[in-house]
């Protein structure tokens, strides 16, 4: 399975799609490393207020300056990566774990179950994502885990849809019919005959929904919903706090959090788009 994905990544490294994917992968991995190493590379300056002078422009001691609460912007930016990636991971992984099986079963069984699920999923999908997440966040309260869950709901329909579509097309393939004629049970057919084909489509969708999740999480924080003030890094909130100071010419507290959001989102998008372009022909070839 992993081999199947790695192969095009390596084989197509010189095509546009391949380059895109590698750049995206590089950026994403970079952020992951930053997130993991945050306690080591930025041990102080991200939570405790007034550790440093307030609103200092970038300087050799504070490469990104300090913010209105006297914190080091660079440290907060680094810890922000951790926060964002945690939220994103929770959200997307739960969405995948729920959407994938439901899509598989719904697509394979069809009938009223399928119609019901499609109705539910389409309704959720139609809702504006940020709004829905905000509503859920309002209900279940603050905290990284809760925000992660709030975002999940937006993405479950996406994984459901992608899985279901692949399932529907693969369901009619002769080798699936062959499995039925051998007497395979539906669960066997779904797991051993259909799932593999769907799995190929997942990484691309994963990256793209991850990018979206980062933005949504940042959006929620920006709106003041979601995370506690004591969270060590919170790009959205930082942006929100920095807004009122822009007029005074304090640009670094807005620019750097914003840049981080953009960069991570772009990295994940590149990875997703690149993977998408590469796996599409694979999907077609699988069927032929």
């Amino acid at each position: 399975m992993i081999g199947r994905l790695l192969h095009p990544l390596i084989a197509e490294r010189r095509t546009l799609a391949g380059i895109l994917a590698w750049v995206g992968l590089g950026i994403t991995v970079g952020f992951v490393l930053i997130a993991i190493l945050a306690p080591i590379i930025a041990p102080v300056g991200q939570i405790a207020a007034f550790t440093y002078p307030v609103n200092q422009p970038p300087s050799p001691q504070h490469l990104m300056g300090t913010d209105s609460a006297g914190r080091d912007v660079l440290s907060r930016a680094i810890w922000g990566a951790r926060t964002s990636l945690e939220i994103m991971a929770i959200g997307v992984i739960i969405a995948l774990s729920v959407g994938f099986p439901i899509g598989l079963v719904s697509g394979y069984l069809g009938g009223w179950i399928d119609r019901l699920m499609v109705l539910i999923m389409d309704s959720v999908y139609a809702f504006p994502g940020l709004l829905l997440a905000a509503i859920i966040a309002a209900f279940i309260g603050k905290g990284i885990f809760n925000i992660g869950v709030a975002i999940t709901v937006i993405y479950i329909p996406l994984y459901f849809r992608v899985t279901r579509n692949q399932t529907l097309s693969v369901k009619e393939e002769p080798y699936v019919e062959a499995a039925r004629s051998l007497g395979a049970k539906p669960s066997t057919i779904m797991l051993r005959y259909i799932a593999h084909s769907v799995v190929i489509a997942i990484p691309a969708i994963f990256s793209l929904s991850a990018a979206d999740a980062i933005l949504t999480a940042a959006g929620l924080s920006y709106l003041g919903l979601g995370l506690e003030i004591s969270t060590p890094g919170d790009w959205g909130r930082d942006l929100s706090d920095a807004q009122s100071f822009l007029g005074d010419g304090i640009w670094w507290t807005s620019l750097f959090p914003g840049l981080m959001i953009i960069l991570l989102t772009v990295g994940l998008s590149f990875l997703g788009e690149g993977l998408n372009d590469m796996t599409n022909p694979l999907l077609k070839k699988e069927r032929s």
Partner: protein
Amino acid sequence: MSVRGEILVSTISTRTLSQQMDFEFRVDDLNVHFQLKRPFIQNLFSRDRAVVHAVDGVSFTIRQGEILGLVGESGSGKTTLGKSLVRLIEPASGHLVLNGKDITHLGESRIRPLRRQMQIIFQDPHASLNPAMTIGQAITHPLKIHGIFKVKTAEEVKSMVLKVMREVGLSPEDQLYSKYPADLSGGQKQRTAIARALILRPRLIVADEPVAMLDMSIRAKVLQLMLDLRSKYDLTYVFITHDLATAKFLCDRIAIMYLGRIVEIGPSKEIFEDPKHPYTKALLQAIPIPDPKKRVSRVLPKGEVPDAVNPPAGCRFHPRCLAVLHTCGWEGRDFIDYLEQRRLNPERAKEDERILGPLDLWSAKGSKAKRKVRQQDPGPILAFLKEILGEAQQQMAQAIQSVSVKEDHIVVEFQEPEKLVQTQVDARTVECLLYQQ
């Protein structure tokens, strides 16, 4: 003495069945229907429910050890029939009786043990193998499904699989065991499909065009393999094909299918030597012979296999049949087709259009074809109709009951066709009025 070898774990009843009883599979008035998917709006507005009668009242018995050919063109229903035999498709009505047991509507869990007795090989070798499974896994899988790992160790199972691979000519089997389908040739893939079907030691194998997608130079090997396996394992085949030459070579009996019905069924030799049904004759005539010295001028039926949603009335082949009678099922549609054919000639088209009007004024319903006449005097139209009927195919003209004016429509009405009955002629059964006296 049957070379049944290792019998897998199974319920005692099926075990006894396969060892003791002779094999017999009876098909009784089988009907298989498909609902056509149409836009919702269209379904609201049209009165006929778009149902394709893919298999329309088919009856025959499959005897042990024979190779029964199902021969037909597209739309004949042969593949649908084949798949219904192994219950991949649920019949709408009729009966499938396997060794005395009615399996037509058995639920999936009760059919599952019986599936070991009947297997299917598909047409497209490239699509019938799971691309994510190695050859070894693919051939082991049927054993796994039916519980072999409860009675045998992994090594024992592997050697069973390797043995079957050797039998079907997949060598070197140790190497091919761990390869994926993508690494194999078409012929090897088809052999894998055969091995997969064979490993359960079925009694019946339905082979749906098993060599149609293979190169000619390797077809013979795969067919020979199937013949060898038949002798060795006392197999029975239902061999589905559109290729009459292969059917003649391989099959003991053949059933010629047209639009969901069997039009002729009997010993292969008799049918090929002396085909009775006009469709069978047409098929045989149409085959191109790979010998330039034997070029013949062919007399071919016109048109193509019609739409299966609304098949022709009476005998379905009647609009194309070169030996058609006036009782074969002429109906309104045939008359309109005749009008359409006349208009291929530009001079006639002009006059026809002038008197009879544009073709979309005419409509057909069942045995009638009609056209609305408003202010016009129907007289000249009726006269013209009688005149052109003189130029039409004699049998169709004879089948017309009346050409008259009813309310404000001109109506051309046809007689009821004579009912078709399966008739025994010269050792085979034919469904054709020519032989019903």
